[in-house]
């Protein structure tokens, strides 16, 4: 039986080859991508977890005395929140809070807003502590306008639920399907064999041999017509690399400096606090008569890790779409976290918090942002040299904020607090950069370059008066994963 040999059709080897390449590509995906995805997911989850817990943490060296007192303690001092009159008056107040020094001895806190409080921001302070045996009445001043503004944006949802953008907003990256794979699903080749004997249904035990076998041992299985059709199919199955434009699949890493640029009305990086905590007197809110610390926003680190699918559209230009995880951070100084219940009313509603922070200089709070980004970029090779290409890239990126611990700045009272319902989850960035080809000779070339991105959308919802935009400057490393 060793002598029984047949020549298989050409399509058999072609199918074998296609499947081998497919398995190799899948293996590469698992070896490189799965660890990268797992790493990014793990890092993101760790950061989100740590930032969620970070609301209770403080890096302050001093804490106000009220923070150590449980609710209902008779000896608790009242934590006073600096009052403000109209917003206009608020703005006109001198730094240092000279006007407020008169109210240091007052035990009741009244907060009034003027008739023309366009911003409709006010603070309701829910004092649960008991001082001098008397429970403080809650004093909630009402404006002519309703204290709690109606929610203007009906689409606003509590971020206890997930605000999932509509499918139109998100563009899912398409899988890297090469044309070889698509065309690899060819029809079965038509292979006709020259019958040696007629094969009848197996019901009858006696076979009928109609032809006397007079053919050589080695049977040519396919005839010429079948061969031609198979060859045509084969040509379609395996396209030549020179004719078809491949999709390039790359791993993209970026690292650099993140900055938060602010354009908030009344918010100045050099604004000074007119109150500081803990002056020691009972009932005092810790107002200081002296000019106090400045609120500063500092740069932080940023990095992204993701993948990119690039397709050349002309000789030296290409379009790409990617998917990445982005982490950005900044920091601001505070006077320390105040652990007290408070409600902040703003144009979106009321934020109920159990801690907040005032502008100060004694501690630093780190704002962290976690994004899922989908950049769509245009690439242009500026030079003709294939060995050392210089590439310009520019485009936009849709980014979705999946987690953050950033504090919202309430300018009326120069207070920071955390409320995740205030974030603008879907954001748009503009990106530009220049990169250089490194190690182009190998099958998996590297590119290194500089990148700049700026957030066109602010970090906070539009109806809020805080206008902060995230920007990033850094280095990008791009490593192509499919063979040249």
């Amino acid at each position, binding site marked *: 039986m060793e*002598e029984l*040999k*047949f020549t298989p059709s050409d399509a*058999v080897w072609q199918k*074998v080859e296609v499947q081998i390449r497919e398995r190799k590509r899948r293996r590469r995906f698992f070896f490189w991508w799965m660890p990268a995805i797992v790493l990014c997911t793990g890092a993101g989850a760790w950061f989100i977890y740590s930032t969620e817990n970070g609301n209770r943490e403080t890096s302050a060296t001093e804490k106000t005395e009220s923070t150590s007192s449980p609710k209902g303690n008779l000896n608790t001092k009242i934590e006073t929140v600096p009052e403000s009159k109209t917003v206009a008056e608020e703005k006109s107040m001198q730094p240092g809070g000279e006007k407020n020094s008169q109210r240091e001895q007052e035990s009741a806190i009244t907060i009034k807003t003027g008739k023309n409080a366009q911003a409709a921001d006010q603070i309701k302070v829910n004092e649960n502590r008991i001082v001098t045996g008397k429970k403080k009445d809650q004093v909630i001043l009402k404006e002519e306008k309703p204290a709690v503004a109606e929610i203007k944006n009906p689409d606003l949802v509590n971020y206890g639920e997930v605000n999932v953008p509509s499918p139109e907003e998100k563009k899912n990256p398409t899988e890297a399907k090469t044309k070889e794979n698509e065309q690899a699903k060819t029809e079965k080749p038509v292979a006709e064999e020259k019958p040696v004997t007629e094969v009848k249904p*197996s019901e009858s035990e*006696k076979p009928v041999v109609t032809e006397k076998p007079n053919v050589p*041992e080695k049977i040519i299985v396919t005839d010429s017509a079948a061969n031609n059709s198979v060859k045509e199919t084969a040509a379609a199955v395996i396209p030549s690399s020179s004719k078809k434009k491949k999709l390039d699949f790359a791993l993209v890493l970026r690292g650099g400096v993140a900055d938060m640029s602010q354009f908030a009305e009344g918010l100045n990086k050099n604004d000074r606090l007119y109150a500081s905590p803990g002056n020691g007197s009972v009932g005092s809110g810790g107002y200081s008569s002296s000019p106090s610390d400045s609120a500063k926003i500092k740069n932080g680190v940023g990095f992204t890790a993701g993948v990119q699918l690039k397709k050349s559209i002309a000789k030296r230009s290409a379009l790409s779409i990617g998917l990445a995880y982005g982490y950005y951070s900044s920091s601001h100084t505070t006077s320390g976290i105040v652990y007290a219940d408070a409600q902040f009313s703003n144009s979106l509603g009321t934020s109920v918090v159990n801690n907040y922070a005032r502008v100060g200089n004694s501690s630093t709070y780190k704002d962290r942002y976690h994004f899922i980004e989908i950049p769509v970029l245009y690439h242009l090779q500026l030079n003709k040299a294939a060995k050392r290409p210089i590439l310009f890239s520019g485009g936009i990126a849709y980014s979705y904020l999946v987690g953050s611990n950033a504090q919202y700045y309430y300018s009326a009272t120069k207070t920071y607090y955390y409320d995740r319902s205030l974030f603008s989850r879907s954001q748009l960035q503009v990106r530009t950069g220049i990169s250089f080809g490194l190690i182009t000779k190998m099958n998996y070339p590297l590119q290194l370059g500089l990148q700049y991105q700026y957030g066109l959308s602010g970090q906070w919802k539009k109806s809020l008066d805080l206008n902060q935009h995230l920007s990033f400057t850094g280095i990008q490393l791009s490593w192509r994963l499919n063979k040249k």
Partner: protein
Amino acid sequence: MIEQRQLIKDCLRGKPKAQKQLYDAFADTMLGVCYRYTKSMADAEDVLQESFVKVFTHLHQYKEEGQLGGWIRKIVVNTALNYLKRSKNYQAELVFHDEGMHPVSDDNPAMNMAVKEIAALIRQLPTGYQTIFNLHAVEGFSHVEIGQMLGIKDTTSRSQYLRARSLLITWMENFESVHPKTNHYAQ
């Protein structure tokens, strides 16, 4: 041997030329093996294609303990069996019954027939008989091994094989009577 080792190394590195060379060296013979287990050349080529994908995927497991051809043949046979078990066409015919032994003659008419004629007759057996006959008479597996491979008792395998053999002898005798050739025993 050195050439074969180098060929295997190149195949493991993913060189297309080396892989094609390996395929060309064994494809003809292995298609003959597939042919014996299937009912049509198209099915045989399907089995061959699956087999060689497995060969290249698991080539790193080949330890050079035996012939490379023998290692590939084992893969092909196992692939053919799996193919038969999966195929709806064949599943209905893969029925094993304990049957009595069929008397066989002492003549050996197979010597007068060409290999491919015998293969054609083997392929005309019911699938169960065909499979067991191939595994025992051609591949050389014992009935115990065949029982393990097919999930049947070794006694069932033995009886199926004897039944297949007796059928084949009958057909060969008929073939001889229709197409007489020089009979070695008659001389």
